[in-house]
């Protein structure tokens, strides 16, 4: 998985922004959403790989919560055409 063509990501203090430059739409991201997009951007892989990397980075008491967040968020990104395989 990677960001779709024409989609740009930038980290910000509040989290980040995704800019779909073809339709010129901007999506603001929370810090947790930005962390997921950062992983997509630098490491790629599927939801499981991204979840695994995030679980190793964060001292998550509930690893399943990260997994749920990643799956829901990636589904949202796919639905909006912001990521591609």
């Amino acid at each position, binding site marked *: 998985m990677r960001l779709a063509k024409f989609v740009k990501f930038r980290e910000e203090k509040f989290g980040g922004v995704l800019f779909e430059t073809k*339709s*010129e739409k901007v999506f*603001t991201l929370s810090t947790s*959403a930005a962390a997921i997009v950062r992983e997509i951007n630098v490491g790629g892989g599927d939801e499981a790989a991204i979840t695994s990397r995030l679980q190793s980075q964060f001292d998550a008491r509930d690893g399943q919560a990260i997994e749920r*967040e990643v799956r*829901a*968020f990636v589904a949202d990104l796919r639905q909006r055409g912001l990521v591609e395989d």
Partner: protein
Amino acid sequence: MSAAGTEAAADAATPAVGPVSSAPGAEADDLAAPLYVAWQITNECNLACLHCIEESGPGKAFPDELDPAQVFSVIDQLMDNDVPYLSFSGGEPMLHPQFFAMVERVTSRGAELKIETNGHYLTRDNCARLKELEVKAVQVSLDGAVAASFNRMRVRGDFDLAVQGLRNLREAGVPVEINFSPAKFNMNEIGAAVDLAYDLGAYSFYTGRTMYTGNAVKAWRHLQIEDDEYERFFDTLRQKVDEYRGRMRVYFHEAGLLEELRYRLKHPAALIIVLPNGLVKLINALPFVCGDFRKQTLTEIWANFRHAWRDPRVAAFVDELAADPGRTRTLHQWVHL
């Protein structure tokens, strides 16, 4: 520039893909740098269009346009600050002596770049080069569905040459957008112009209201469209939006200038306008300058940009526009904030 719009926020149960808006609608206050830089790289143009808001034309390059070292320094600053999206316009941007080197500098650093051109220099070779450099899109101005209206609006222009340029873009595989500026003598062609845009392979079509500024002030009697005529114009566009849904996006900005500016006062966009001499404007439709790339860094300019939108002179100018819409004729009398 595309029409603004807002989509629904994502489901709150997700980790927040937040409220969604068009690029110009992304608000500036919380961002570390602009998201979009619209750069008029030269004021020189081969055409002398009736409606040109920049008063561009042959021999109209600013005497103090940025030199090559300054140009590349600005690009490097934009790239170092992760500005994701730029457009090059003019004047005619393809007349800039460093045009292709500038394009390469931007795209090789990973930013997306749109070229806004009159289409008269889109030879097969140039289109192949633009494809090779991976520009995001080329937006061509096509103010008419037939030669007579196009050539009337675009003084010294050649409809057939622009259309051939569009065909060359399509052949090269460069994404194409088309922009249409309405006037009294071409507004009835809007439906045919949208159809032509689709036939020429465009993926987006943009239009809106023509502004009373720049060259348009002198040519207004040829251009002016009455409110009821605009209603018909936008009605046709609404039909075209439906007709081309899923095939080509038809954008039109129906709001008047005053409405747009009042919105921007409350929600400044993360967009700066860079003039050929490095000055930075708040927005095209205001005379206010908030920075100078010859003397300031992007960081300084961006800080001043956000502050400048709250300057009382900006709100006062918008109020004056409400009382006298003709104040737009003074947009080229820059006011430094």
